């Protein structure tokens, strides 16, 4: 090295915290990945990679159903419950549900049928998603810790029931960065009826650096906040101003000498300019073909909101966003409900909610498949907990609603590295509790990271005395569902 050059001890990318590969964790072991090739740094310099860790997924899209989807009425057929309709669940247990009312057992309001080649059973609640059954990997034995919406949602997102912990998307952004530099790594598309309870805490970066926070894309003219000036200034004036900034920054750098902090900031303005072009481009779905729009239901009033977001999700993934999160359901309470929280009437509520998303989600699956993206895209369809097999009513009634069930619920995944058309785990005869292979969110999170080629015990960030992990001190990869 020539002595008159100041060595760049830290690479420019290390200062530019956008598409960078997680740094800055003191005394932390950080797994870094680059285009599917993992290498490990830090305390495990000799760590070699098992072939099974080769990443299958490059990107993921998660559809979060807010409020608690009834597994009994969708993905977990229970003929045993049909038989016991109107009977009492004889138990001395005081279950951990929300309102505490235990009515009589209630059969599903929808018929189940075996679907596709796989014969996977899905109810008539989701007729369109059912056509894609052969792509799905259903987990019927989910359990969670809280029967209360917000802690359960936080747990689903971050593995902790409290505020302040990074969500799955933030961890992926931290571990892998974005594929494209001109778009954020983690994008959130909330329900048109409003954000979920807990708001931005659901897509929080927690203690990870702020660029790992989920970036909200709104519908309408201004999808990303501060993307363009709200004041009316001409394009010329805007350009001339940026030129002035670049000019002054160059002069400043010349007089100061080489400095990463300074050049990184200069570079960030160039990236900002590219983002100003790429965001409107990606959010502009008018150019999509008629067939594609129909596939997602973009132009039908009941599916327009979710259809647009599913289609936008696919476009974001195509252009290099690592993790897209869509919400189905806004604020929890109120009448009529604007989420899946069917305390009053499952039939009415779930019918209305399903109508909004069934076609768009099925369209998304079909579209990803047709474009060959499903090979390395992970699709997640999740909810914070399930619903009770007994009605939420007085003890001698079969009321129309169901309470929260943290002891058993269903989610499904599809795409990259998974065994399609299969079911993992089972619930008891009536779907009240898990009968075999209980699966926690920590297990799901470990499996997601695994599919991205990351060992969940290795992706850590030092914070206030602890090397924090997405999976806390738990989590087992669900090897049985891997292809």
């Amino acid at each position, binding site marked *: 090295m020539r002595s*008159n050059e*100041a*060595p760049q*001890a*830290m690479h420019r990318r290390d*200062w*530019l*915290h956008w598409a960078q590969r997680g740094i*800055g964790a*003191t*005394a932390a072991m950080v797994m870094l990945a680059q285009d599917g090739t993992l290498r490990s740094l830090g305390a495990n310099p000799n760590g070699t990679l098992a072939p099974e860790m080769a990443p299958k997924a490059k990107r993921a899209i998660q559809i979060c159903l807010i409020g608690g989807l009834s597994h009994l009425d969708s993905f977990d057929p229970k003929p045993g419950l049909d038989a016991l309709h109107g009977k009492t669940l004889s138990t001395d247990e005081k279950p*951990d*549900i929300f*309102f505490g009312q235990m009515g009589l057992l209630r059969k599903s309001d929808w018929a189940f049928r075996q679907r596709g080649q796989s014969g996977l059973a899905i109810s008539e609640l989701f007729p369109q998603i059912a056509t894609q059954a052969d792509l799905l990997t259903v987990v019927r034995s989910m359990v969670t810790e*809280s029967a*209360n919406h*917000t*802690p359960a949602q936080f747990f689903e997102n971050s593995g902790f*029931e409290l*505020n*302040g912990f990074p969500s799955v998307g933030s961890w992926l952004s931290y571990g892998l960065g974005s594929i494209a530099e*001109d778009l954020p790594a983690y994008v959130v598309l909330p329900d048109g009826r409003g*954000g979920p*309870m*807990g*708001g*931005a805490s659901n897509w929080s970066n927690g*203690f990870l650096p*702020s*660029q790992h*926070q989920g970036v909200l894309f709104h519908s309408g003219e201004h999808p990303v906040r*501060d993307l363009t000036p*709200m*004041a009316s200034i*001409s394009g*010329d004036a805007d350009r*001339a*101003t*940026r030129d*002035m*900034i670049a*000019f*002054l*920054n160059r002069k*400043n*750098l010349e007089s*100061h*000498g080489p400095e990463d902090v*300074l050049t990184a*900031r*200069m*570079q*960030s*303005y160039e*990236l*900002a300019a590219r983002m100003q072009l790429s965001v409107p481009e990606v959010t502009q779905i008018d150019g999509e073909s008629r067939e594609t729009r129909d596939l997602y239901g973009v132009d039908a009033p009941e599916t327009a909101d979710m259809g647009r977001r599913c289609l936008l999700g696919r476009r974001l993934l195509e252009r290099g966003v690592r993790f897209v999160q869509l919400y189905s359901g806004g*604020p*929890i309470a109120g009448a009529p409900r604007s989420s899946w929280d069917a305390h009053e009437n499952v039939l009415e509520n779930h019918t209305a909610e399903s109508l909004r998303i069934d076609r768009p989600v099925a369209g998304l699956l079909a579209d990803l498949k047709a474009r060959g993206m499903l090979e390395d895209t992970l699709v997640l369809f999740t909810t914070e907990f399930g619903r009770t097999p007994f009605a939420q009513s007085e003890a001698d009634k079969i009321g129309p609603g169901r309470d929260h069930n943290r002891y058993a619920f269903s989610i499904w995944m599809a795409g990259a590295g998974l065994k399609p058309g299969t079911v993992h785990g089972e619930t008891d005869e009536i779907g009240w509790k898990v009968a075999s292979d209980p699966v926690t969110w920590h297990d799901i999170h470990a499996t997601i990271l695994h599919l991205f080629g990351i060992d969940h015990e290795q992706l850590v960030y030092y914070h*206030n*005395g602890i090397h924090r992990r997405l999976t806390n001190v738990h989590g087992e990869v669900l090897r049985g569902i891997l292809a």
Partner: protein
Amino acid sequence: VFRSKLFAFPCWFWISALLVSVAWSERVGFAGEGEIHALLAGRCLECHSGGVPQGGLDLSSSSGLAKGSDSGSVWELGQGLKSTLWRVVESGEMPPKAKLTEDEKKVLQSWIESDAPLPETPIDRFKITSAYRAGYDWWALRPLASARDPHWGEDPWVRNEIDGYVLDGLRARGLNPNGPATARSLLRRVHLDLTGLPPSYDEVVAFEQDPSDAAYRAIVERLLASPAYGERWARHWLDVVRFGESDGFERNYPRPNGWHYRDWVIRALNDDVAYDDFVRMQIAGDGIEPNESGYAAASFLVAGIHNTVVGSSDRMKRIARQDELEEKVGTLSQAFLGLTAQCARCHEHKYDPISMESYYQLAAAIQGVDHGERESRDPQIEQRERERMQARQVWSDQAMQLDQCALQLAAQRDAAPVERPIAPTATGATPMAAWNFELPNDQRWTDTVGGLRAQFHGNQVDDPRGLVLDGQSYLASDPIPIDVGAKTLTAWVTVDPLDQAGGGVVSLQTLNGATFDAIVYGEREPAQWMAGSDGFSRTQSFQGPAESVSGPVHLAIRYESDGTITAFRNGAPYGQSYSNRLQSFGANQAQWLFGLRHGPPGGNRFFRGLLHRVAMFDSALSDTEIEQLAGARALHWDLRHAWTLMSESDRELREQIRASLVQIDSELAALRAQAKKKIYTVVSNPNPGPTHILTRGDVYSEAERVRAGGITSLDGAHSDFGLAEDASDVQRRLALADWIVRTNRSLLARVMVNRVWHYHFGTGIVDTPNDFGFNGGRPTHPELLDTLASRFLDEGMRLKSLHRWIVLSSTYRMSTSPTPSGMQVDAQNRYLWRYPVRKLDGESVRDSMLQIAGVLRRAIGGPGFVDVDFREINGTTYYLPKPMESEDCFRRTVYRFNPRCERSPLLDVLDCPDPSATAPRRANTTTPLQALSLLNNPFVFQMSDALVGRVRGDSVGSSAEDDRVIQQLFQQVLLRLPNDDEFVTARELVRQHGATALARALWNTNEFLILE
């Protein structure tokens, strides 16, 4: 020999030596016994020791080893390498996760082969520091090293000992310190660093003319004495203590009275309160000074998140409680002691000598802490308040008599009461109070008879049909100024939906909600009306029909002096009346509630539907009167109308009384604000209850009970505070505060001086300011850290002395210029060969822009400015950033109302932390979103306009004028004049796009946003 040598070095030396060396056998200087004990302690005893060791095998003592495991003997003397113990280690079966290294295996092998016994007393895992974990002898827990003789010699660069130690460190690495910063850089640095605000251009020019030491010292003194100092450094402390102004979690309710803590911190820092007092007040201020200041300080304990919806199950309640204790124990142990005690909730601390017992002792010390509001009181002012209240009573009695006259007169004169909204002749009765909710929103809230005011709580909807009650909302009146005995409550109301249960329509309750009489719907019998009362003590079923009309109905309940209670629906008796007793309510002791059965608000007490009109009488009306009331829905008692019928002189008299009452009320309001301030702070649970160690942290696995105490390893003794198990909350916290500030002052001082260093230089001497344990960083300059800490203690733990010492050093005054040797040897600048190049934090960016633009409001303290819109949806509060800041937001950012979750777009991207957890150091990121916000956020345009307006004044545009404006903009923002080519470029920009384009550009330059 090795041992004696070991102690010739300061402890930090051999510990860091221990940690950086490579192989176990090389790095440990212990005799064989110490070596094997450390190995067992570090790798085996976490599972194989204690009350219930894994597999029944206890490896901590000779008897444990002799006993073997559940499946039999593991090692008999003489068995050597044939033993089970060796076999499972050799095969890699044990330890189950991180396997032993070859070197570790060698140590174990030689121990097993040598047949050396284990001690009879169990090995204390915490005793000694090893390659695995910190022991009682951990560097941070040891006493401060006494300063050694300086050996940096005579060097003109060395202004004080800081420079000596820094120079030592640099020379050891073949580095030299940078030369001094320019006067402009240094002045900007010291201003922003100490006060968070930049100097003016004139101050820069003055300092450039006289950059002497004396001038610099004078500037430092001025900055430390400025109130802006406390505002700046309070913001740092608020990061550490996770100060936020909403609950977080699901509801995320705002804490409108949380700001007192922020003001207390600012005041304490400006007053340079001794640090140990600063600490004590935050733990037990309410016990030390039970007044505004003490309550505000103790708010530290409750400044974090708080779960207000824990669900119905016992398990969820217990977990929420334990989570909250962990959050508090974690924050206080990290903030004050740099120890992560919260890690010992479920198991003994994996890295530091903190037992579960110590953790639960700390938890017991704060077990009685609840979240809530308290009022601070001033007895003298309260006395004046009582006097004014008596005066008010005299005036209001007179006013009421006059009003009754007016209403009676009006009733006599008005022939057609239903058409004209006035009291009907037929009834003759006038209510004591009435509200007409069909009036427009701005007239609804005052009683139309006596002028009693009421406050609406909840979601306000403008609906001409009446008061919309959505099950979350209610209206509450001021205290009723007269005694009420017999009474009649009446209301026009719409029930919606009919299947609700328990809501109150009209309630007369004592101010604390303990006693009430109310019209209640469907509480005990579906859809039936009843006379609700506290504990149903005056309630019996009327056995009336279920309500079936979801439209306006007229309800009345009559309470006669003989205790008879009768209900009427649409003028007709409703079911059966019954005999009970009459409840009386004293003057100023009771109030009206509408839409709520009784306080506090919550549960099924809320009514849902519409409330049209209400009228309450302090007499038992006759059946006929009630029937007439029900027949005249349009009827209301309009005092204003009545007074139009009175004589001019009567009206003047009434007006004088009204003016007097207004005057007294405003005096009273001022007195009340002074006498009683609501402060969000600790509320003591009168019965904190016992504390158990929870095995594995499981809320149902209660092991032995512990009493309030500290961390055993900090004082080497049993650290029980010696309090009774039923000691009060305040006693416990007073003991905790004393323990923290007295027990290990070395640690207390090291942690704080390191924080201060961290904020001055961007990185601490220990780069993990909240964690001085095994997992944290090691000091780059251990002797300097101890010297700073000693001096801090010697000088009474005054922060301002410490600042003075640091900013007057040559180290602090160096330039930031990169040098080849510096970059090559120490690119991260941990050894301080230059002053670091740092980005301004979000608050400094915003505050600087406000100041430079000339619009900063310097009001100190008080409720924060609010740059978010509150939206309460079904009980959850959302905080949405306002599209644009209004001028009342133009205060220093530390005064921003700081809710959790949704935050300020600009501050968010500039790495201001979410106050969900303690943030001892901020993330430091550079992202395109930052660039976009600094370019496009409306605030940046507001500040550009304001700045240009300020420099341009009333002048008219001309090229000479433009040049002056350009010069001024550079002077204001960059604190210098533009050079020639900058001038040329700027002129072009201003000519084509105006001066605001240049202002916007300057805010975005590195020169403005980076501190050199």
